[in-house]
């Protein structure tokens, strides 16, 4: 624990968080599923960088280990699992989005502004923790929701969920860097298990309906 965090490092954290938010917007408009997976890898890389920054500035040695784990899992394993799935199913274009690129970007802008100011309006000024990064993180989470809602194929929706998790990771890095390493590692392990389960269900879906689109998944209602 270092007590007061100098404003310069808080600035670095904010910059990285904004990079994550920007990649989230890029994912929202990426038409190719492969490019969406690449953008996710890039976003995860930014999150791992943030972990290194946090570890260096707050002298939390644990967090270096976390950065390594998060790099291995989110930059290497998850994208390669998804790429292999895409190669096997030979589908490349994302399913039609429910809104055009411009409209969905506007919606995403709206919700991210909302998220940013909603956290800002809490008026919690802690000397230990940067509220701005938390606000950006909540904007990432909300844009991920927009992505999941507006895309109608299983890969985009899964990538949306994984990037939602990236948004929560930023929040947890800046707010809860002091969480015990065992807990943080369990979070990551959990994500790994979730990725496997998502992958299995996606394959089953593709095996049955020969498509990645969710348009077929509308039989259960009432």
């Amino acid at each position, binding site marked *: *624990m270092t007590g007061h965090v100098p404003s310069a490092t808080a600035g670095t954290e904010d910059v990285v968080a904004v990079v994550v938010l920007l990649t989230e917007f890029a994912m929202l408009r990426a038409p190719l599923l492969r490019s969406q997976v690449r953008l996710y890898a890039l976003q995860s890389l930014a999150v791992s960088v943030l972990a290194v920054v946090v570890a260096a500035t*707050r002298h*939390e040695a644990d967090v270096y280990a976390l950065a390594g784990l998060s790099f291995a899992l989110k930059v290497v394993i998850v994208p390669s699992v998804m790429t292999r799935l895409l190669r096997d199913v030979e589908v490349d274009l994302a399913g039609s989005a429910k809104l055009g690129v411009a409209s969905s970007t506007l919606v995403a802008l709206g919700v991210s502004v909302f998220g940013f100011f909603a956290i800002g309006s*809490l*008026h*919690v000024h*802690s000397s*230990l*923790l940067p509220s701005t990064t*938390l606000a950006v993180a*909540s904007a990432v*989470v909300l844009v*991920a*929701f927009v992505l*999941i809602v507006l895309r109608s194929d*299983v890969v985009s*929706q*899964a990538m949306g*969920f994984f990037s*939602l*998790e990236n948004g*929560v990771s930023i*929040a*947890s890095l800046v*707010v*809860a*860097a*002091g*969480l*015990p390493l065992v*807990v943080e590692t*369990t*979070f990551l392990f*959990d994500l790994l*298990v*979730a990725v*496997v*389960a*998502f992958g*299995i*269900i*996606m394959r*089953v*879906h593709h095996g*049955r*309906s020969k498509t990645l689109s*969710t348009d*077929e*998944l*509308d*039989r*259960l209602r*009432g």
Partner: protein
Amino acid sequence: MGAVLVVLVVLPFLVGALSYAVPVAASKVLAPVSGAAAFALSIALVPSVVSRGHVTAGSELRVDALSVVFLLATSFLYFATAVFSAGYLHLGRDAAGTRYGRRFYAGLNVFCWAMLAAPLVSDLALLWVAIEVTTVVSALLVAIDGTQSATEAAWKYILIASMGLGIALLATILLYYAGTSVFGAGYELSYVKMLAGAHRFPAPVMRLTFVLAVLGYGTKMGLVPVHTWLPDAHSEAPSPISALLSGALLATSFYAILRYFQVTAAATGSTFPRNVLLVFGLASLALAALYLLRQRDMKRMLAYSSVEHMGILAIGMSFGVTLAFVGVLLHVLAHAAAKGTAFFGAGSVVAKFGTKDMAALRGGVGALPWSGSMLVAAVLALSALPPFGLFRSEFLIVSGGLSDPRYGVAAVLVGLAMVSFLGLSWSTTQTMLTAGPADPEAAAVGVAAGRVATGGSRAVTKGEVSPWIVVAMALGIAALLLLGVHVPADLSRLLDHAAHELGSRR
């Protein structure tokens, strides 16, 4: 007693791992034994928790009266479901049957392990992890049949529940954020510690935390408007999994909400969290009651009944008096027994008639004299008819509401519960108790004992699907009667302790 916690958190997982390796015939025995052991160990915890307040093992495992209530509900259903599965699964001796059986039993045990681990851990971050594991495992179990609709249900379930849990994780982190103002930047997120420091947490952060926690864990609990995965997953999963989802998983998520309720009530006073739960509870109860009136699919009907009961739990918490809290916790136990039994019965009926459409299930009691009648009994129990446990618990909740006093809410609760009662009991008795149209003599005299009814054009022979199904359902009915007629003294003390842990205004 600490060793009991360790065994509870290790045994089901080991059995799950073992089930993947040993022949399915061995798993059929292992799972009920493990379930019975878990239930016995949970019962063994009751006296020491009542006398000493809590039991701990190491720094991460801790149970108090509240946790033990949920352990009892989950372990009972683990046991009953394992017994039911032995009769329900008709696995061929070929490779496909073996593969299915191994996956099923490994999943069943690991699913129960995660649900048992949730109330055992004291760290709220680990609680989140346990609940996320339940999502992943149960989504795979929902998809296990591999049909188009099972895949659809599993996809909706894993996506919506994971998004909900993403919000719950945000709530966990915000709670940590609130705690840093008291404990500094590095500490463990145990609920004991949070409760001790909560009065100094910033109130706006705690309010946001609670809303996010209810929204996040409420997604898994099936609160309206984030319940949308629930009817699909419950109806498309194999019946043993439906029973666990409805009776134990929803309760486990409710447990998480109760922990946030405790901390938030300590930080901001209980009015705010009670009002949040009131809104979600009323919405759930109202929507579920309306859907119950027009539901024609047996398992979807039971799923909406779960939404209804989760709404009743949330409303019960909103009354904020000890009487209502005791009712809520008793309701958790009774709902587990009733919904488990009902889904077992639905599984039996579906296996017999080959459909879930209630119009085709005419003459169910005639064809299945034991499981059919116990299914009707379980549905009547779910409608809160005496002498079953849910009557007692809903009575306590409503009395709590009248003493709060929130006459309006209590009246709405009773009114909507009546509507659900109508929907549930009308459609069930209409189909199960009437004779099949192809048998005019039976139709004329009603269902006489021993007469075989037929469903639609399909001839159905009389006789149970399996004795194990009857045994599992009898376990549930016995528990419901016990909770309704005479609550054991130790259990009654446990519920009182747990209700006091939830706090109250008087």
